[in-house]
C-alpha cells in the first residue's frame, strides 16, 4: 500500500488562531490592494467597453499603433502585447451603446498598416447597460448559491456546520479576489465561473470532513468537539491530499497550457483550490469548535445554576 502519510495525529485545531491570522492578513492586504486600485479590476464584461485582440503579420511598433488610433480619435486606448509580440490587445472603455468601436478601430489599423495585415482575432464589446446587468447577475449568482448551500447543509447536517461552510466559502472567494488583485488580473465572466466552481469544490472538501465529524460523533459520544474535529481531519487527510493534488495538477495544466483566453480562469481556480482545502480545516472547523464550546459553557453554567 503506497501512502504519503500513515495514521496521523496532527493537532490542527490548536493552530487555528495563527491560521485565522494568516487568512485575515491576506484578505486585508487584498482589500487594501483593491481599494488602492479602485476596486477589483473588472473586465469589459462588467464595465462595458471593447476589447480587441489584433493579430499582425509582423510585430508592429506599439507607438505606431497608438498614433494610428489617436488619429482615429481613440486617444484613450490601453495597448499591450498579448502572448506573442505580433498579438496586440486593445481595450477601449467607450461608454456608449450601439457604437461600432471595433469596426472603426480595425479600419484605422488596416489603413495605418496596409502591409501588416491586421486581423481581429477576438472582439468583445459590451454596452454599459449589459455590463451593469452582468455585474448584478454575477453578484446575485454568488449570493444565491451561498444561500442554497446554507439551506442544503443545514438540512443535511446542522445549522452551525452550514454557517462554518459558508463562511469558509466566502473566505475562499475573498482570498481568490485578493490574489487576482495582487497580480493585477482582470475579473471577467469566466473568473466568476471560476469563483462559483471554487465554491462548489471547497464545499465538497468541507462536506467530506463534516461527514466524518458526523460519523465520529456517533462512535465517540463523549469526545469533545475539538478532539472530534482533529480526529476527523486526520482520518480524511489522505483523501484530502490526494484529491487536492489531482485537482491542483489539473488546474495547473490549464494554467500553463490552456492558452490566454482561459488564463484568468485557471489562475483563480489554482488559488481557490488551495484556499478551499485550507479553509475547511482552519475556517469552517474553528467556527464549529467555538460555537460548540460556547454552547457547552452555557450548558455547564445552566447546570451549575440548577444545582
Amino acid at each position, binding site marked *: 500500500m503506497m501512502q504519503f502519510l500513515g495514521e496521523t495525529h496532527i493537532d490542527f485545531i490548536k493552530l487555528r488562531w495563527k491560521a485565522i491570522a494568516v487568512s485575515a492578513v491576506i484578505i486585508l492586504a487584498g482589500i487594501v490592494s483593491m481599494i488602492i486600485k479602485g476596486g477589483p479590476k473588472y473586465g469589459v464584461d462588467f464595465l462595458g467597453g471593447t476589447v480587441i485582440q489584433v493579430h499582425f503579420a509582423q510585430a508592429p511598433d506599439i507607438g505606431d499603433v497608438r498614433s494610428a488610433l489617436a488619429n482615429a480619435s481613440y486617444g484613450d486606448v490601453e495597448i499591450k502585447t498579448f502572448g506573442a509580440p505580433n498579438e496586440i490587445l486593445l481595450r477601449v472603455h467607450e461608454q456608449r451603446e450601439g457604437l461600432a468601436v471595433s469596426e472603426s478601430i480595425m479600419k484605422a489599423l488596416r489603413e495605418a498598416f496596409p502591409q501588416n495585415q491586421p486581423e481581429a482575432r477576438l472582439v468583445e464589446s459590451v454596452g454599459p447597460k449589459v455590463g451593469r446587468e452582468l455585474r448584478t*447577475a454575477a453578484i446575485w449568482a454568488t449570493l444565491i448559491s451561498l444561500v442554497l448551500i446554507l439551506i442544503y447543509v443545514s438540512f443535511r447536517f446542522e445549522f452551525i456546520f452550514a454557517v462554518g461552510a459558508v463562511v469558509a466559502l466566502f473566505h475562499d472567494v475573498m482570498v481568490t479576489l485578493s490574489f487576482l488583485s495582487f497580480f493585477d488580473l482582470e475579473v471577467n465572466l469566466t473568473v466568476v465561473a471560476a469563483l462559483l466552481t471554487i465554491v462548489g469544490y471547497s464545499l465538497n472538501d468541507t462536506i467530506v470532513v463534516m461527514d466524518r465529524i458526523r460519523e465520529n460523533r456517533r462512535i465517540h459520544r463523549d469526545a469533545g468537539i475539538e478532539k472530534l474535529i482533529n480526529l476527523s481531519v486526520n482520518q480524511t487527510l489522505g483523501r484530502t491530499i490526494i484529491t487536492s493534488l489531482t485537482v491542483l495538477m*489539473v488546474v495547473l495544466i490549464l494554467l500553463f497550457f490552456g492558452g490566454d483566453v482561459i488564463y484568468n480562469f485557471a489562475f483563480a481556480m489554482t488559488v481557490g483550490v488551495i484556499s478551499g482545502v485550507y479553509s475547511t480545516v482552519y475556517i469552517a472547523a474553528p467556527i464549529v469548535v467555538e460555537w460548540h464550546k460556547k454552547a457547552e459553557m452555557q450548558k455547564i453554567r445552566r447546570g451549575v445554576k440548577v444545582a
Partner: protein
Amino acid sequence: MRRNNLVRTVIIVLAVIWSLWQLYPTFIVGRQKNEAESYFAKVEQQTALQRDEINEALNSGQLEQRIRERLRHKSSDSLQQVMKETSSLIALHDKISKNDAKAIKRGLDLQGGTYLVYEVNLPKLMRDVAKNKDARFEEILKELDQVAAAPNTDYFAALQKRFADAGIRLNRYFGSRAQTDAQIIDELKKEADDSIARNLEILRNRIDQFGVSEPSITQQGNRRVVVELAGITDVNRAKNIIGKTALLEFNLVKEPQIFQDIITKIDNLLKRDLAAKSGAATAAADTSTADTTGAGGKVSQDKAVNVSELFAGSSIAGDSANASQDSVQVDKEIFSGNPFLSLLRDVGSGEVAVPAKNVRAVERILNNPGVQKVIPPDAEFAWSNKPEQVADEQYYYLYLVKKEPELSGALLTNAQQQIASGAGMTRQGEWTVSMQMNDEGTKIFSRVTGANVNKRLAIILDNKVVMAPNIKEKIPSGSASIEGSMDADEAKDLAIVLRAGALQAPMQVIEERTVGPSLGQDSISKGTWSALISLLLVMVFMAIYYKLSGVLADVALVLNIVILLACMAFLKATLTLPGIAGIILTIGMAVDANVLILERIREELRTGKTVRTSIEAGYDRAFWTIFDSNITTLLTALVLYQFGTGPIKGFAVTLMFGLAVSMFTAIVVTRVIYDYVTRRYNLKTLSI
C-alpha cells in the same frame, strides 16, 4: 445480489455501446472533412470556381448544374472526369452534413463566429412614432435616454411619469386625442413588443439570404434578439445587414427657392443671436486654413472657428460635442454677414454641399429650437448617405425634402442587384439595385412622377438620401433603381435588406463577442491538449498510488468522459472553451469520488476486515459523502447555468453532466467490477 449485478452489468454495457454510437459521428466527421478537402481542391482546380461558390452551390444542391454550365465548352471526356469527382464530393458532403448534425456542437468560441445581442432602441422608436415633435419633446426624451441606458428600468413608466411631471398629456405627441395617458402607454408598449416578433422574422429572412450556415436567431426577454453566426468571416458586413433598419422612402425635394429662403432666415436669426453676444465669436480664432472652394465661385480665405463658442447660447442643452470636431471651415468674407451660409458650399449643380468638417456644426444649427421654427412644417432636412470627394475635400449634400414620403419600401415586391449596362446615368460596370413595386406602389409611383415632372425625387434609406434624381417623365412601370458608387457586396446586401423589408423598430447592438477562426482553432488544440495531459497525469498517478484499484478507477474515469461527451452529443449541448475547462475539472473531481471510496476501503482493511466486507463497507460509507458533495456542487452549477451567458452556460452544462455521470461511474461501474473480481477469484488481498 447476483441478479442485481446482472442488471447493473447490462446497464453499463448498454451505456457504453450507446455512448460510442453517439460519439461515432463526431469521430468520423473530422476524417470525412479532411477527405472532402482533396475533392474540393480538385474541383476548384478543374472548374476555376471559388471555394465559396462551390460551397454555395453544394448547399443549394446545384453544384452539378453549375459545373455543367461552366464547362460546357470543354470536351466531354474532361467533363466526365470532373463530374465523377463532383459526385463523390456531393456524396461526401451529404454524409458530412448528416454527421455534423449529430456530432458534438462546437461553440462560437471554438469554431469562430460572432454572437450579437440587439435591443430595440426605445428612445429612437419613440422619436420615430411621435408626431408634432417640438423642442420640449426633444428635451424630455433626452433626459429619458439615461433611463434607457440604465439596467432593469421601466422606460415606459419613466416616460409616462416624466411627461406627467412636465404637465404634458401624451396625446400631444402620441396616439389620438381621445386617448388617456395609460392607454397610450399600453399601446406604445404593445407596439414595442409586437415589433420584436416581426423584427425576428425579418432578421431570419435577411440572414438566410445572406447565406450563413445554421444561424441561430432567438428572442431574449421582451426587447432583445440574440444572433449567433458561426464561421463567419466578415462580421461587419453581417452587422450591416442585420442592424440596418432599411426603411426606404421616396420623398419629393422642395424647390431650391424655398431652401434659399430658409437659409436667409436662419442667417438672420443667428446674426441676432450673435449680436446679442457682443461679437466675441469673430475674434474666436485666427488660425486660417486654405480652402480653394469658395461660395459662388469666389476664392476666399477660410478660417477655423470654434462653433461651440459661436452658438453656445443657442445650442441644445446637454449637447457635449467633441471639441476637435467643432473646428469648422467657414468662408471668411461672408461669415460675419451670413453665419449659416458660410458653412455651406454651392457646388454648381444647384445642390447644397457641406464640407464633412462642417456637418456637425450645421446639424447643431438645424436642431436649434429657434431654427426649427423657421423650417416649414411640411419639410425636413436630410443628409446624403455618402460623402463625395471634390478636389481634396469631402462633401455631404443637404436636402430639403417634403416630410411626408410619397411611398415607402413596404410597397416593393422585389429588389435585385444588377451590373449596369452603361445606359442611362450609370457608368458601365457599376452596381445598381433595381426595385419592382407592387400594384398599389406602381399606381402611386406613376401618379407622383406624372405630377412632378422636372422636380427631384429623393430616395431615402434610413433617413439618409441615397440619391435625388430629376423626374424626367411619368414612370408607369413601377420600377426604380438605386444607383451610386456601390461595390458588388454592397449592392447585394442592399437588395437583401430591401427584399426582407424594414425592421419594425430600430435596433442597436448592445453586446458583441466575435472569435476569429484561427483563434477558435487555437483554443480547441490548447483545450484538447490540456485535457489529454491532465487525464494522462491523473491516470498515471492513480495507477501508481492505488495500483490495480487505481487502474480500475482510471477505467471509471475514461468511461466518465466518454459518457459525458455522448450525453452532450445526444442533447445537442454546445461545447465551449469553458466547457472544455469544465470537462478537465470533471476529471479532477471524478477522481475524488474514487479516492473517497478507496481511502475508505483502505481504512476498513486496516481494521482487519476481509477484502469483501471492506469493499462493501467502503462503498456504503463513502456513498453519502459523495452524494452530499456532488449535490452541493450541482447546486452551484445550476445557479451558473441560470445566470450565465453562452460560454459560461457551456461550462455549467459540462459540469452538471460531469457530476451526474461521475456518480454513476464511480459508484456503480467500479462496484460491479469489484464484485465480479472478488467473487470470481475469491481474493484474499486487494491491490490497493
